[in-house]
Structures are given as C-alpha cells and as structure tokens.
C-alpha cells in the first residue's frame, strides 16, 4: 500500500515550551480537498507550519508520502496568509509567481525563459494574465490572493497547504479559487485549506480536520462534519488543556 500524502504521529507543537497543539495523530487521504476547521486560536495555521518545519515540534513526527518533510520539499506547495508579506516590496506580480519555481531551481541558479513561461501560464490559470507587470501593491486583496495561488501552481507540487486563501477576498474571487482548488483535486493533488467559514464547508471539502488545541475529528465531510463534532470543536473552553499548557510554561504546577 503506497504511503499517504500526509501522516502525523503523536505530534505536539510548543512555543517556548508551551504546547499549542496536543498529541495530533492523523492520516490524510490522497487526491482530496481537505478543510482544516476550528475556532480562532485553535492551532490551524500552527498545524500547517509544524508540517512544513516552520514551527518547532516538541514531540512526534510528520511524514509526507512516507518520508520526512526535508526530503519531500519538492512535492509540497505552500500559500501563507496574505498579510504575512509586505506588499510594498518592489516586485511585480510575475516576479512573485516566478518565486514558485525557486525551490526547484536550487541555490544560485536563476529562473530563465522556461520559468517565465510557466509563471505566465500560471497567471492565466488564475485569470490574472493582464496583471503580470504590475507592482503588487496596486492589486486588490482578491487579486493578491490569486497571485499567491498562481505562485503555488508554479511550485507544481503534489500536496498543497493553503492558509486562509479565502480571507478578505470578494465573492467572485472566492468562487474562482474554489474552482481552481477543485481542478487541482481532480488532477490528483491533495489540497489542505485552513478555513473558518462553517456554512461553506460541506460544499467545498471532501474531508475535514476538526481542530481545537487537539484533534477533535478527522474524516470524510459527510460523516465527520456533524453537529456533535462541531459542538466538541467550538463548544466550551478547553480549560484543562489550557491550564496544562500554562503549567508547562511556568515550569511547575500552579497552586
């Protein structure tokens, strides 16, 4: 049996020793659109960052198609949250999309005509071909998000991790992004999307990961996105986990 695109074993993520995600165990299926759902501060972005090696693991391990991330980088594409970058940076839309090819090129090699053509075609796929020479500050929020998606397409990955691609975009862009994600899925890619708009979950995702400091449930949307699981994800504060995390941070049991 081939290795799954993403497998997480007993992963705990901690910042300054304080755990923010507890004991995650997860196997994700291939070729599906997968929603990562949970309230604010549930650790949705942290889950992605931990998988990509951007957040420190306190314990556990992550496997991408059976191997550690460092060996599988070329299979993975990443779309960070839009506000994590400085849009005043002196680059054009095409430059940003071309950055998607940098990982493949490796150190020192510069992108050439082939990469430029690829970036151009990725811009076309997100309907932004007319905007290639624009400085990125001059684009609307939805257009900036499309540029990020085009960049991910240029990464030509098997698995994509997207952090809130729908945040702050207009309805038309949201629809365009969904269509694009579906076509990626139909092409056999596995796409993880951090999402917090509950109404659209059933329409968008084949598989959901419900998260709130710990894994509440993971499975096909039809059977997993249930009222009971949602109540567990969103209902009540997880006082025990929070107290435990605080105790670890302080280094002693609180009195």
């Amino acid at each position: 049996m081939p290795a799954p695109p993403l497998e997480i074993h007993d992963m705990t993520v901690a910042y300054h020793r304080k755990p923010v995600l507890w004991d995650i165990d997860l196997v994700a299926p291939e070729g599906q659109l997968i929603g990562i759902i949970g309230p604010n501060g549930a650790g949705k972005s942290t889950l992605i960052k931990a998988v990509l090696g951007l957040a420190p693991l306190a314990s556990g391990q992550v496997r991408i198609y059976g191997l550690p991330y460092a060996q599988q980088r070329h299979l993975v594409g990443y779309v960070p949250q839009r506000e994590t970058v400085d849009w005043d940076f002196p680059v054009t839309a095409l430059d940003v999309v071309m950055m998607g090819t940098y990982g493949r090129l490796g150190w020192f090699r510069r992108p050439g005509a082939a990469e430029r053509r690829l970036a151009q075609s990725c811009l076309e796929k997100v309907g932004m071909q007319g905007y290639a020479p624009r400085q990125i500050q001059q684009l609307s929020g939805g257009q900036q998000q499309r540029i990020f998606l085009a960049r991910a397409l240029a990464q030509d990955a098997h698995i994509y991790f997207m952090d809130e691609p729908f945040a702050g975009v207009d309805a038309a862009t949201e629809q365009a992004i969904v269509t694009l994600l579906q076509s990626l899925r139909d092409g056999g890619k596995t796409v993880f999307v951090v999402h917090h708009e509950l109404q659209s979950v059933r329409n968008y995702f084949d598989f959901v990961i419900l998260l709130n400091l710990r894994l509440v449930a993971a499975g096909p949307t039809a059977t997993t996105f249930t009222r009971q699981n949602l109540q567990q994800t969103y209902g009540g504060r997880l006082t025990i986990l929070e107290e435990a995390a605080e105790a670890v941070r302080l280094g002693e049991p609180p009195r």
Partner: protein
Amino acid sequence: MANWFASLDASLRDAVFVVGVAALTNVACALLGCYLVLRRMSLLGDALSHAVLPGLVVAFVMAGSLNIVYMLAGALAVGLLTTFLTQVVHRQGGVPADASMGVVFTSLFALGVVLIKRYGQGVDLDPDCVLYGQIDLVEFYTVNLGGYEVPRALVSIVPVLAVNVAVILLLWKELKISSFDPALATTMGINAELLFYLLMALVAVTTVASFEQVGSILVIAMLIVPGATAHLLTDRLSRMMLIATALAIGSAVLGYAASLAWNVAAAGPMAVMAGLFYLAAALASPRYGIVSTLVRNAQTSLRIVREDLLAMLYRLEELRVERRLGAREATKAIGAGILGDVGLWSLARRGELKRVDGGLQLTDSGRRRAAGLVRSHRLWEAYLVQHLGLPADHVHTPAERMEHFIGQRLAEHIVADLQDAHQDPHGRAIPAPTTTVPEVATETRRHGDATDEGTEKGGRG
C-alpha cells in the same frame, strides 16, 4: 599609470582619491541598505556599527595594531553574535524586536568602551575620527601594492565591495525571496534565517571597513538613505539597487564639492547630499511624491468643479429656466472661486460649453456628459433610500459627493439592484444612460485597469 597619476595636479589628485574612496564605500553600504530598508530594519546598521566595538578592541589586542584583517574578523564575529543575541532576547525573552536590538547593542557598545579603557591603551579612538572618519586624509595613508602607492583605504574597501556585489549577484533570487516571504523560502529549502545571518555578517564587515574611512555618520546614512530614496522612485528591486548605487556615488561627488565650498570635512556634506536627494525624491516621486499627489488632487478638484458646473446647467435646463446664467453667477452657485473660472475655461476648451449672449449654454456633448452625472447622482440617491433606508431629505449631499466617482460598471450594478431605476426618491426622472461615459471611467483606464478597456470611446466629443 603611476606617471600619469603623479603628473596630476595635487588638488585634483586629492579630489580623485577622496571621491573615489567615498564612492566605493557608499556603494558598498547602499547595496546592503536596500535589503535593510525592504526588511524594515534600517536602524540595524546603526546598531551594528556600535555593537562591533568590543570585537574591534579584542582584535586590536590580539593583533597588537589596527590590522584590517583582524579587525574585519573581529567585526564579523561580534556582528553574528549580536544578531544571534538580538534574536534570542526577542524570541525567548518576549521582548519586542526594536527593544531587544537596543538592549543588545547598547550593552555591547558599553562593553567595548570598558574594554578600550582597560586594555586598549594606544587605540586611536578620536571622537572626531569616529564621527567623520579620515576621508579627507585618505591620500596620506598609503600602502605599497605591486610598486604603486595606493591609499590604504582602497585595500580594505575594494574587497568588501567586491564581496557584497558577488554575494548579491550569486544569491539574487535567494535574497529576494527570503526578504519578501521568508516562510515560503524556508519551506522551499532556501533557509531564510541563514540568509539573514549572511546579510548581517556583510553589514558588520562593511560597516567596519567603511567606518575608518568615512566615519559613523556617513556609514549609517548610506545604509539607510539611498535605499529609502530608491524605493520611492521605482517598484523593481534591480532598478532600486541601481538607483541606490547612483545616489551613493552622486552623494560622494556633490558632497565633496560642497565640502570644498564650505571648507569642512567631507563626510558630513556627503551625508547631507544623500538627505537632499531623499527630499527631492519625496517631493517629486511619480507614485508616492508630494508634488504628484498635489497635482493629482488638484486635477480631481478641477474635474469635480467642471462636473458640478455641467450638472447645474443641466438641472436648469431640466427646470426650463429661460434666462442664461452668467459666468460669475455659475461659479458662485457651485461655491467655487478661481477654480470655477478655470473649470469654465476648460469646459469651453473641451467644447462642452459655449457662451451665448453673455450667458452659458451646454453643447450637445456637454449635455450628454451632464446627463450621465445627474444619472449617477439620482441612482445613488435611489440606492441610499432603498438599501440603506435613509430618508429622502438626507440623500442629496452624499449623492453630490459620490456622483463624481460612479463609473459605468458601478452604475449598472446599482441599476440591477434597484426596483425602479427611472425615478429618484424626489420623483424626478433619472436620465437614461448615454453613449458618453463619465470622466471617472477614463480616469480608471489611464491607471491601466485592463478590464475597463474600450470604455473611453466617444469620451471627448
């Protein structure tokens, strides 16, 4: 070559030496400065230049003299150490980035001062020299290199500049992506943290190599000002680097000229020149500049006055007022002073208005444009009443503001959203769409909105 150079007039030779060394130093700093400005860590150069002091003292004690190789090694070590400590204080201590920088750099600088007092007898640390450097004396400190007497300054700054240029060219894409999106870079295997340390190492070494020549004021100025100025003038990274280079050289040349005229040390005027370049760019930059903003605002004001005049004349026609309004009356009615006169003149020139028997009269093209404006105005009024639930007597003023900014597409969207797009809330007819497109649409087009292509036709009848 030696003969050629020796035969030069002494003051000219002096000028070539000073400007040459200053220009090379400035460029070395300005190139790195571009990255610092883009990463919003401009003051790091300032901080690093102080923090390397203990490294310099240790290097001096170990080498027994001001040996440039030892000094650069000391600077490199302490530069990396300070960067590391700043990160640690920031991350582990939960201290904001700027404060952690302040804590580490002031502490190390103070440690350096203590070390000098304790071990550094004979270190040449003249305050004047630290501030201004020895750029004016550059030709008196020479070394013999392959039979030629060359300024000692060149021996330290040329290799440093060469390393900076080589690193930037070799790691162009790596530095670019790790400055723009460090997280993505790291996931791709381009370790952003490593590149950050590399950049800081270059800044530390460049600072120390430049320090002795041009002093701290010019080093700090060159690490920040040319990059910041260039960023105002372009939105391409490569052009930003080239412009910053040109500005760094320009500051050296003009600063030297000013230093002769004012009879002061050259480093100060060079930094002042960089500041003046920035001022000029801030005023004149096409996109962010103060002048161009003023011009844009004036153009918008004039357009609004023109449109107010047209719409007013249209409403008078609509009310079948027989008497023609005079120019004075018209500008007074829309509350515009001299700008109103300019507006009338420009309307006449566009052929949207003519004077008949001393009164103002809309031409056909003027009437079409006016109808478009009144249409926008009344559509907006209707929209506010229907969708925002405002009372009918509250909607005129906001519509008066908005009518100038409603293009064809927005108007269509409003129509689609209204139950009745033929009558405004006051019971007046909303003019039908005309072939003339309001000016606002052509405005958008000029800024290059590809989706609005083709809306301009018939604009200027």
